[in-house]
């Protein structure tokens, strides 16, 4: 689909809006439906759209495989790391109260980072899985 100009332009616009929407879903999760998981899915979908319109190789240059594989791990480390931070600050594992002088603010801080961790891992895993399936398919077509 690399040759359709209209698609390419609209896709570029769409991807911008999708990323914006993902940010909304991520940070609006405190007030309305949404959160790290849903936002991660939407970010991944925007890159998938990019890959469909511009080709897998183009997407892979924007976000290389090595980076995605690292992000898969980083998300879990961020989440589990929040728990360790709670331990180091004298609380139990995943205790957010101790993350700040004010317990409720500490909760806020903990939830923010936890949701960030979820977003990173979910985004990276979804995209990586898509890359792997798609590249497998391309080789099958070539045979």
């Amino acid at each position, binding site marked *: 689909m690399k040759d359709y100009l209209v698609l390419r332009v609209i896709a570029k616009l769409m991807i911008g809006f999708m990323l914006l929407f993902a940010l909304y879903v991520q940070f609006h999760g405190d007030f309305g439906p949404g959160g790290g998981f*849903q936002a991660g899915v939407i970010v991944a979908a925007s890159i998938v759209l990019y890959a469909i319109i511009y080709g897998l190789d183009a997407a892979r240059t924007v976000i290389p495989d090595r980076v995605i594989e690292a992000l898969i791990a980083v998300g879990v480390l961020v*989440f589990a790391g929040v728990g360790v931070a709670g331990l180091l600050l004298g609380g139990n594992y995943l205790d957010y109260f101790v993350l700040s002088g004010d317990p409720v603010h500490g909760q806020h801080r903990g939830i923010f980072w936890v949701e960030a961790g979820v977003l990173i891992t979910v985004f990276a895993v979804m995209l990586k899985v898509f890359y792997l399936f798609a590249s497998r398919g391309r080789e099958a077509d070539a045979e």
Partner: protein
Amino acid sequence: MEGVIAGALLTMMAAATVAIAVQRNLFAVVILSGIYSFLMATVLVALDAVDVAMTEAAVGAGISTVLLLSALHLSRGEEVKPLHKPLLPLAVAVATGGALVYGTLDLPAFSDPQAAIHAHVAPRYIEQAYRETGVENIVTAVLASYRGYDTLGETTVVFTAGVGVIALLRRRRRAEKARA
């Protein structure tokens, strides 16, 4: 009115599962399962589970469909007629259903505020979540804080699946040729 709509949606869901069971064209099966997920998401909205509905729409109708289609792309699109009569599977499935009927008949009445799930544990979330965590969406508060450890486990499950798919699908051209 709401009940009628929910009833209609549920009926369509049941119809979609029957169609999936009967249909042999796998492409149609995948599309039907996407429709099924959308119907499920709508029913979930009617049941006030907006977060779940949003996730089910994104995952069930979105990701699952994309994954199924890409896997389908790598294989034959038509299902073979089974060789044997599926009596045992039917018996197992019906027995399970029977156990579910048995188990659900004397559950607490629908929407009874005195039922255990409304009277125990949940009230603290509903009454205190904002004061204790400063988050207005109670689902987010429970998900990320009260039961945050479950969510860590859930993220780990996603991580496991991601690394597992890497282990299974990443091409290792040189390594495979060396072994062949």
